[in-house]
């Protein structure tokens, strides 16, 4: 069951310049009752996106028509809190391919990677630059190149490198899945078990 291959992405961005965005905000607990992975995008950022009467809150970036694209940009410590992979499913289901922040929570980072969404960690300074550029011109585009591990503000050609381990990069570029990989390693795992359990 391969994941979708990641290709170089050029897109406008949806900015949410708030720090400590926890997974309860990305997808509130009351929407975790589904038993499949589909449809979570409808409730992505539910309580920031809709008011008590389920009316869209006009100035929330997901509702604001001036923002669009498949790159979500959030403040520091994005995805902290609950381990719910539903947060990653919601982001992927909504159509985002890339999440950019200056800092990601560990479990969230694994979760998005396991769903073919690329977390791009940039410096505080570059993050501030992105927010400023999008604020000045919502049509600002970013280019995310996984092969060369760079993120670029197209208008100014300002660019920064980002880290990803070689294994995960290979998985994303080829659409490989950790579970298939582990299944291919079962003989080795069984040999380990034998020794480990004595």
């Amino acid at each position, binding site marked *: *069951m391969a994941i979708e291959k990641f290709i170089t992405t050029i897109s406008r961005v949806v900015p949410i*310049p*708030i*720090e*400590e965005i*926890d997974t*309860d*905000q990305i997808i*509130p*607990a*009351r929407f*975790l*009752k*589904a*038993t*499949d*992975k589909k449809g979570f995008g409808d409730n992505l950022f539910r*309580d920031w996106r809709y008011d*008590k009467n389920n009316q869209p809150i006009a100035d929330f970036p997901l509702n604001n028509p001036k923002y669009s694209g498949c790159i979500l940009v959030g*403040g*520091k*410590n994005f995805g*902290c*809190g*609950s*381990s*719910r*992979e*539903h947060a*990653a499913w919601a982001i992927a289901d909504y159509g985002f391919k890339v999440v950019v922040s200056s*800092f*990601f*929570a*560990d*479990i969230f980072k*694994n*979760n998005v990677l*396991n*769903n073919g969404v690329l977390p791009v960690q940039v410096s*505080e300074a570059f993050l501030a630059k992105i927010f400023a550029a999008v604020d000045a011109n919502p049509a600002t585009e970013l280019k995310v190149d996984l092969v060369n591990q760079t993120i670029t503000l197209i208008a100014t050609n300002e660019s920064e490198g980002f880290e990803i*381990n*070689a*294994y*995960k990069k290979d998985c994303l570029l080829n659409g490989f899945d*950790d*579970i*298939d*990989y*582990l*299944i291919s*390693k*079962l003989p*080795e*795992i069984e040999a*380990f*078990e034998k020794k*480990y359990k004595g």
Partner: protein
Amino acid sequence: MGKTLFDKIWDAHVVTEIQDGPSILYIDRQFIHEVTSPQAFTGIEGRGRKVFRPSQITATADHNIPTMDQHLPIKEYLSAFQVEKLKENSARHGITYYGLGDEFNGIVHVVGPELGYTQPGMTIVCGDSHTSTHGAFGAVAFGVGTSEVEMVFASQCIMQPKPKRMRITIDGELGKGVTSKDVILYILSKLTASGATGYFIEYAGSTIRNMSMEARMTVCNMSIELGARGGMIAPDQKTFDYVKGRKYAPQGADFDKAVATWKQLYSDADAIFDKEYTFDAADIIPMITYGTNPGLGMKITDKIPSLTSVDPATKETFVKALQYMGFEPEQQLLGKEVDWVFVGSCTNGRIEDFRLLAAMLKGRKRAPHINTYIVPGSYLVEKQIKEEGLDKIFAEADVELRQPGCSSCLAMNEDKVPSGKYCVATSNRNFEGRQGPGARTILASPLTAAAAIITGKITDPREFL
């Protein structure tokens, strides 16, 4: 060079390391619950496979269940469906399942230790960030996503990059009325909600050594709120005594053999940590949070920081948090009226927590306007509450004891706090909407919660001691 406790356990579980990539890490025990497992079962079945090592997996229904009338069918359709799925999936794959009404049902992180599944030296995962709780036994325990739950179903392994090591040492005696919850809220207020991201924490020092196993679990439980991958404490005689005789612990000669191995589980004197922090127990008093992440906490007697004192980079987040909470910069919260009190959760839902609550409520009454959710962490905890007569003290204080579950910690069931209302909660997260849309959560210890039940206000529990 010596090894840290974390490295000793991690290294013993590495099947192989991928060059410039994660390790394949063998998992001794996986706990599952109804919310984060169904898609993993669908996934593995879609691959035409069965669960690889079902005897190393334990299931309990906890997140989505009512805490009243548990003998009746669950009313809410989606919740009932999810719990039913867990039961069916567990049966189909030969996994032990503790459902509603089972004498061993309860919150996954309360059940694991009390049944002796949780043991020193183990690797433990669960699709739940508070899996760090089990680290109190000297285990490498951490929360994972559903893809990783499926990895363990398929291979009893996950793919993990090795985190860095952090040691937090707390020395000295805790003052009267200061609990392990205050210790971890204090650490959070100092290090922030991302202070340990990328790290695995070992808690050390005399303050930690002097804590009971229950208190240690509270500390390790909230490691994730610091952003840490997990938190752990080297096992000692208290740990061995706690594990001994429990249902799934090694028995007789096997137990003695196990203890001999467990005694090797400590950080060597010359082991190097990537980061170290030291705190003095004497500086800790009862703590509360004022914001919308657990790092935004303060001493109960303090004032909320002023706008000029917060880091300009975090100002917007700080202002947004206070706006949500309905608080002002420099406001003092002592005496602030609250509406609800929640005592329970995997953080503070163990017998010791209810003993603290009962000790303070004894001979006193609930303030009339206060609503409560008093929720044991498991059926065994509930049973012990009744055996010790604590339920009578609660009844006399006009406080209702509910049935076990995660309850108002994340309010997936009916145990919600209404919009705009304030709740003093012994749980682990004060995120926006965590206890229900618009609910305002103030995290605190069971003693501070008890004091709020009595006065109806944020109250320093030391006034009652």
